[in-house]
């Protein structure tokens, strides 16, 4: 599903050049649950952003679903994101002015899904995430765990092929963290690929394999479970 060849990312400002990723090679197959780990500043989020087409690499190749995407325009990247990718962030990134239902509905609006179908799909996913009873609440009226469940619902409602999660439990206590990880696990088991950045060993234990990064390079791939 994902193939990276010598992917490099350099941040340049007027006087400083920071190497964030250096010649990263990686392959992710459909249905995998991959955890990316490493110390702060090692390039985990940079890698995730490149994979999620939120950022462009400085060098190297990136093939998503057999298509070279490293040098696409923002418009083309946006199109691929919209139809194939879902995102879960550490700080949930729910839109405060929209209620639960409306937040989850948003990707479907951008995908051009019709109103009736949107309604069914949002209800279905909220029910699945056990947050349907809160559909008219606004983000500020929810606990952190509930907000992240909404964020996961929003990430999967468009039936993406892959979910990118950036420290999804980083702002949650252990009980709520566990809940969110179980949801991601369920999503993955239903066939969706998941790539997750985490600091937590326990969260990583939900994945099929762990990629360890250090100073912008993959230093170790620990395959926890044979994946075929």
């Amino acid at each position, binding site marked *: 599903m994902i193939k990276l060849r010598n992917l490099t990312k350099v941040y340049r400002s007027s006087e400083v050049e920071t190497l964030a990723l250096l010649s990263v090679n990686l392959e992710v197959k459909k249905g995998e649950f991959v955890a990316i780990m490493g110390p702060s500043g090692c390039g985990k*989020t940079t890698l995730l*952003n490149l994979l*999620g087409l*939120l*950022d462009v690499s400085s060098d190297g190749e990136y093939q998503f679903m057999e298509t070279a995407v490293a040098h696409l325009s*923002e*418009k083309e990247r*946006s*199109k691929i*994101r*919209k*139809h194939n990718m879902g*995102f879960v*962030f550490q700080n949930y*990134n*729910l*839109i*405060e*002015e*929209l209620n639960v239902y*409306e937040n989850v*509905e*948003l*990707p479907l*609006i*951008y*995908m051009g899904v019709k109103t009736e179908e949107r309604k069914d799909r949002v209800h279905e996913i909220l029910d699945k995430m056990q947050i349907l009873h809160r559909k008219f609440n606004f983000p500020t009226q929810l606990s952190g765990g509930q907000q992240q469940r909404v964020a996961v619902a*929003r990430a999967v409602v*468009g039936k993406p092929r892959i979910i990118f999660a950036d420290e999804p439990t980083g702002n949650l206590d252990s009980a709520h963290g566990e809940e969110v990880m179980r949801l991601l696990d369920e999503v993955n088991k239903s066939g969706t690929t998941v790539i997750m950045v985490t600091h937590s060993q326990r969260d990583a234990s939900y994945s099929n394999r762990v990629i360890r990064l250090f100073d912008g390079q993959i230093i170790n791939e620990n395959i926890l479970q044979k994946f075929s």
Partner: protein
Amino acid sequence: MLKNIVKTSFRFLSKNRVYTLINVLGLALGLATSILIFLYITDELSYDKFHEDYENIYRVQEKYDWGDYTQFWATCDGNIALRMANGPEDVTTCRIMSYYNPPFLFANARSAENEKVIFADSTFLDVFSFPLVERVEGSVLGSPNQIMISEEVATELYGDISPLGKTIEADGEQFEVSAIFQKVPTNSHLNFDVVFSVELMRESFVRVDSSGPMIFYTYVRTHDLNSKTRLQNYLQNDLENEIQKLMAKSDEAKERFAKLKAEIAFIPLTDIHLKSDAEKEYQTNGNFEYIIIYLTIAIFILILASINYINLATASSVIRAREIGVRKVLGAHQKNIFFHFISEAFILVLTSTITALVFVELGFPTFNAFVGKNLSINMIWTYEILSFLVATTFVLTLLSGLYPSLLMSTFNPLTVLSNRLNAQKNNKINLILRRFLVISQFSIAVFLSIASIIVAQQLRFIQNRDVGFNREKVVVVPLSGDSGLDHLVDLKEDFLRIPGVVSVTGSSDVPGERFGYYGIYMPSLENDLDSLPQEKKHKTWLGVRMLCADHDFLSSFGFEIKEGRTFSFDINSDSNAFILNEAAIRKYQIEDPIGKEVVFNYAVKEPKVGKIIGVVKDFHFASLHQEVDPLMIHIFPPFYRYVILKIERQQHASLISEVERKWHKHLPRTPFSYYFLDEAYESMYRSDNRLGRIFYFFTFIALFLAALGLYGLVAFISEQRKAEIGIRKVLGASIGRLMFTMSKEFVLLILFSNVLAWIPAWYFINTWLEDFAFKIELSIWPFIFTAIISVFVGLLTISIKTWVATKSNPAEIL
């Protein structure tokens, strides 16, 4: 999608109430002001457009340019209309003349007075289409005893009964009501309540149709532009031929008329109100330049309000950034984001427009009093105004929303989601734009403030200037026709007996009115010029304004006699004497004027020949816009229209009722009316005072909007600089120091705005003052004062917000 945008926008706006309030209030105030101005301008531009075929109606005038003097009157002689009617074009003409000393009307044991009365030709309703209530069959002004009255006069005299065909008495004669018309629309340059026929005039004034006295406003309705051009050329040729004939008469005439440029002017009916300023206008017209000024200010105010939005929306983009990032991550394109924020701007502008309409409705009474009009919200439901509203809403949406929407749509989702957008606050383009906007806003406010101060100074100068006579405690009683004039002597005697009345006099005009312009000649003046050939003598006319007044007129007003003496009851020959003002002496270089002979023969059977007995110090009988014209004063009762009472104290209620009692003693059927001279004199400056009031109002709005915008901007900036403030506090900065840090940039921007506004303000105000013959000297102080005030307003605004920001506990921020 749209539903989602509307929902998000409404929720964002209701959550950020201060932001919304500043924007809606600012835009609504700006829009309300502009709508009111637009309505005012629409009304001004609508003058005389209610007449059918108004594009083909013209007022005909003659312009005589003698090189050193141009005579351009709104009136012309009665013959031109005849020549047009008998000319090559099939046109309809109509002559109108104001009734100089209108009589009161009496019918059904009731009377009506103080009406505006005119004479008009029988073609009146063929040229004009004043809305009628009812009329008789056939001609309405064809015979001398026909009269047209307004619905109001009809009600006053006959109550609910229709007076059509009934009789009305005026000056002892009976007239038959031939038509009743609706109240003349306010947007008509002609206003009147009663119309007599020109045929009535003919009975006492045989020269109605002949060349001579220029007393008629002459209108012509042509078929089209070509017909108008042909007619104008025909009259022009006619006039030039006349002049050629005159020139052929003698060498002297040839020499005299060679320098004359004579021109026939066709003034379009719809141009009269705003663009015509000829001598003897029917009434004081509007001023097209002021319309342009008001329009410019309305645009300024709208720009101010838009700038507030741009500034606030750009500043708030930082707090909207995350939302934009999320939307982009979830699949929104740049155009989706642009559409989202431009829609939000539209929602705000639309809300503001609706709020503005509420403000407009609430503001009508005050605004109408301000501008002396009778505008109403119903005027909005016209194609023009609705188009203006729709167009303004869209233009404002674009003006306000375009930049912030473009800016936000280009946000990189990664940057905004990783909270790196704070760097945006130092984004160079944003910073330059924000500075530019603050400068623009304050420059406009400063420009208006300077203009306001100087306009106020000039208006105060006008009010306080010694006009050369005492206009206070003077009561003016109109004589209401010949019957009043007949009892003038009795009235004067009786009024003088009332305790508190100092003096009583009669006159043709009172200061503040446009005095008539007449020709006199002075044989002695020409005889002095020995070099002048004999045949040229007695030919040079001196143009002077004329005031006909009683013996005691000059002493009643406290006019200063510079040379000679004033009129005396004891000297019989004074009834033929003349007094000139200094301007006349100066202009016509009259040496030793006392005792010199003057001949006046306008509209009198026998020329009035008398001597100059005095020279009165120049006084401002007309407005300070003009230099004092040459003036001639003489005793001439047939022209009197007023009894003037000088009273002891301004407390007058019982005195006036006593005057009224005495009036009715002599004139039981003639209604009594009066007014105070100082109030009427002030009305000369109505247009200037209006401009002043509008400027003060605009300045207030502009300063308020600029301060509002600054407040909103500082609110966002202090929110963004919270961490910086916290760090500075931890490092030991005092509140005073912090406030200085936060304010200094804005203070510099405001000062810069002042400097920028100075030249246009100076230019504008200098141009405006050029219209006054008597004016204040421009000084630097209004400029300095405005700078101080604007910095003060700016600092006050900034301080309110920065004070709160600097008082917060660093621990809460860091």
